[in-house]
Every structure is written in C-alpha cells, then in structure tokens.
C-alpha cells in the first residue's frame, strides 16, 4: 500500500526530469500523445496521493480519530509517519507558489489566444498578414460553436517578411506546417499539458517537451504533404537566418524546439517508430493509474479496519 501511495509522486518526478529526452526518442506524434497522457495521469494521481496522505496525517490527531469513530491504535500503525506527513506538507508549501505562477501564466496566455481568435471573427480570409520585419508565422486555433457563442474559424497569421523570404515551394511547405497544427489540434495537447503542470509543478518541463514534439509533428506532416523533406528544411533555415542580424539570443535550455534540431531532423530520413519504447511508456502510465486506484481502495480498507477496531474497543468498555 505504501508503495502504491508514493508511486504517482515518484512517476511525476521521473516524468518531470526524463520527459523531454523521452519525447525526443519517440516519433513526434507518439511523443505528443504519450507525454500528454503521462502528464495528465501523473498529475491527477499525484493529487489523489496527496489527498490520501493529508487524510491519513490528519487522522493521527487523536481527537479527529475519535470524532470519526476510528481506532487510533490502528491509525498509528498506518502507512504514514509524522515524518512523511511533515515532508509532504513541506513539499506542498514549496510547490504551491510555482503552481500559482504557472496557473496565472496559463490563464493569461489562454485569454490572449482567445482574444486573438475572437478579433479575427470579422476578418474576411483564412490567412492574415501583418507588416513586420521579423519572419514569423503562427496558427490561431478556432473555437467550436457553443450555446450563445458563434463558432470562430481557424486562421493562419504570417508576417510579410516571412512571405518575401520564402520562395513559392517553401511558402507552401510553411502553410502545410501551420495547417498541420490546426488539423491535429496541437493547441489542445499544449493546453492539457500546461494544466497538468499547474496541478503538479514537478511536471514543469512537460509543456516545453510537448511544444517541441508538436513542432516536429507538424514538420513531419508538412514534409509528407508537400512530398519533400528538404523544401521545409530550407524554408525553416532561410527564415531563421533572415531573422539573424538581429541579436542572436541564447535560448534557455528547455525552450521551444530548436530550429537547428528541426532542420537536422528534416535533412535525415523520417524518424523510426520505436514501438517497444512506446509500449513501455504506455504500460508505465497504466501502472501509475492502477497504483493510484489500488492505494485509494486500500486506504478505504484500512479505514474499515480502524472503524471495526473502534467498535470492538467500545463494545468492551460498555460491557465492562
């Protein structure tokens, strides 16, 4: 029981540190789906574990135990000790500010993306072009029609500098890349991973890892759509270099997919499938979820025992 209780927390720790390199080893579509699933599974199960630990720690207070008609003799031999309770509490206090910061950031970015999509409602074409000296493009996700809310269609935004930098074939490859983001709904994977990282800040590196995987996924999709890997590599390379005589920024280690790595991947054959690794990750996700369900069930059994012991003890005292 103790192991199952801590396994989700351990899984979150492992995923938080190994997630990015794991993602790079898998083909991008598989990496995106598995990392998102793993992030959601570890975030939700570690919340369950924390809740169970909190309840178990609270019940060690004799008055609370008596109030719940539970035997403190049984509770005191439970799966937690005052030390683990203190460590868990401390960890929670340390992680809370990170969770709050990530939550605020996600809220702001989502609100901004929503405003952007909404601002386009009246725009007459599926592409919008801004006059800007930087070569850049991005896909704005649409919003399905909701009650009292008309649907907002998807848009592609590009700067005129990017369109002038690329030739006809390269522009087509760039559009195919942006279409792939929209068609595969990459923003949903990013949103879900970000939510998971808010729920458990140990997963803080996952959103960047999934961003990187979705970029590589869109690259692979676009290369397949135009039937030429090199033309997209050249589009990326040319656009990136055209932005250069601005200040070449040193990018934080875990930032967005490095354009150099993407060009390298496109100049190589398509990535191998790595089926075994994918299955291993899938099994690990399933095991974490199972462990969480099992620990919840065993905690319930444990309370049943404590309740029974309380009744036995109190029956004896009334008969005496």
């Amino acid at each position, binding site marked *: 029981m103790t192991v199952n209780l801590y396994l989700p927390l351990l899984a979150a720790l492992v995923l938080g540190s190994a997630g990015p390199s794991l993602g790079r080893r898998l083909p991008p579509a598989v990496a995106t789906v598995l990392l998102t699933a793993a992030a959601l599974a570890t975030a939700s199960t570690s919340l369950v574990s924390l809740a169970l630990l909190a309840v178990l720690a609270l019940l060690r207070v004799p008055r609370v135990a008596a109030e719940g008609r539970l035997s403190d003799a049984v509770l005191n031999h439970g799966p937690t000790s005052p030390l683990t309770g203190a460590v868990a509490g401390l960890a929670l206090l340390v992680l809370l500010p990170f969770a709050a910061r990530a939550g605020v*950031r*996600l809220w702001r*970015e*989502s609100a*901004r*993306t929503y*405003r*952007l999509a909404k*601002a386009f409602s*009246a*725009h007459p074409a599926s592409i*919008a*072009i*801004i*006059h*800007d000296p*930087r070569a*850049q*493009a*991005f896909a*704005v*996700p649409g919003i399905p029609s909701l009650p009292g809310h008309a649907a907002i269609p998807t848009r592609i*935004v590009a700067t005129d500098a990017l369109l*002038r930098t*690329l030739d*006809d*074939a390269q522009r*087509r490859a*760039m*559009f195919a890349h*942006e*279409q792939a*983001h929209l*068609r595969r709904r990459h*923003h949903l994977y*990013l*949103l879900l991973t970000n939510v998971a990282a808010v729920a458990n800040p140990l997963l803080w590196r996952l*959103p*960047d890892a999934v*961003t990187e995987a979705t970029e590589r996924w869109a690259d692979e999709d676009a290369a397949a759509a*135009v039937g*030429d890997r090199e033309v997209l*590599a*050249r589009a*990326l*390379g040319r*656009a*990136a*270099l055209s*932005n*250069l005589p601005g200040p*070449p*920024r040193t990018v934080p280690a875990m*930032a*967005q997919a*490095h354009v*150099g790595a993407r*060009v*390298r991947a496109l*100049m190589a054959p398509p990535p191998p499938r790595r089926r075994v690794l994918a299955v291993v990750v899938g099994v690990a996700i399933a095991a974490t979820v199972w462990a969480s369900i099992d620990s919840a069930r065993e905690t319930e059994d444990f309370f049943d025992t404590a309740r029974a012991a309380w009744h036995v003890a109190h029956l004896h005292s009334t008969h005496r």
Partner: protein
Amino acid sequence: MATGRRPAGALEQEVLAALWASPRPLTPAAVQEHLGDGLAYTTVKTILDRLHDKGMLTRVREGKAYAYSPVVAQADLAAEAMRAALEGSSDRPAVLSKFLGEISADDAAVIRELLGDLP
C-alpha cells in the same frame, strides 16, 4: 511541386501569400504561374475576384487584365491582437505554436552546415 489537392482555404492562403511576396501587382496569369500544378485560370481569377470583393486586394488595369496587390491591414482589432501575439513570450509559449523559435548562434551554425549559406 506539390501534389494536386489542397486543404480548404489553402488556395486562398497561397494566392494572398504570393501577392504579398511580390514587389509589384500580379495578373491572374502571373499568380497562376506562382501556384503551379496546372490550376485553371478561371479558378485563380475567381479567388482574386472574391478577395477583391472582400476588400483585401486592390487592382489596377494592366493591358487587358487587372493586376492585383494586397491591401496593407490598417490598425484594426485583429492587427493589434496579432502584434500582441507576435511580441508575446515567444521562447515559452503556452498554447500558440510559432513557426520559428528564437534562433541561437548554434542553430545558425547547424543550418549553415546542413544547407549552405543561402538555404
């Protein structure tokens, strides 16, 4: 170059992109040439007319045909929002994926090594 079928909206995007990339107005025949893959002249003409009707293109007479050029977006709501998104934290995006991240000196070296100086 590309295979014949395009997803919905892609033709419109490519037509507009070609007009933006061109230093001077383009006739339907010139746009047709940019798009390749044996697109029908009437298809290109229809798209240009529609974009012109929506106020996204201006046109000038050039011989028998019209030559089209894009209307540079005014400071409308969408343009403002786009600029905000462009400025926004490009190195740590939350839900908006950009075509290019910030380029580092290492990236530039890799690109030059793989693709030469003018990719």
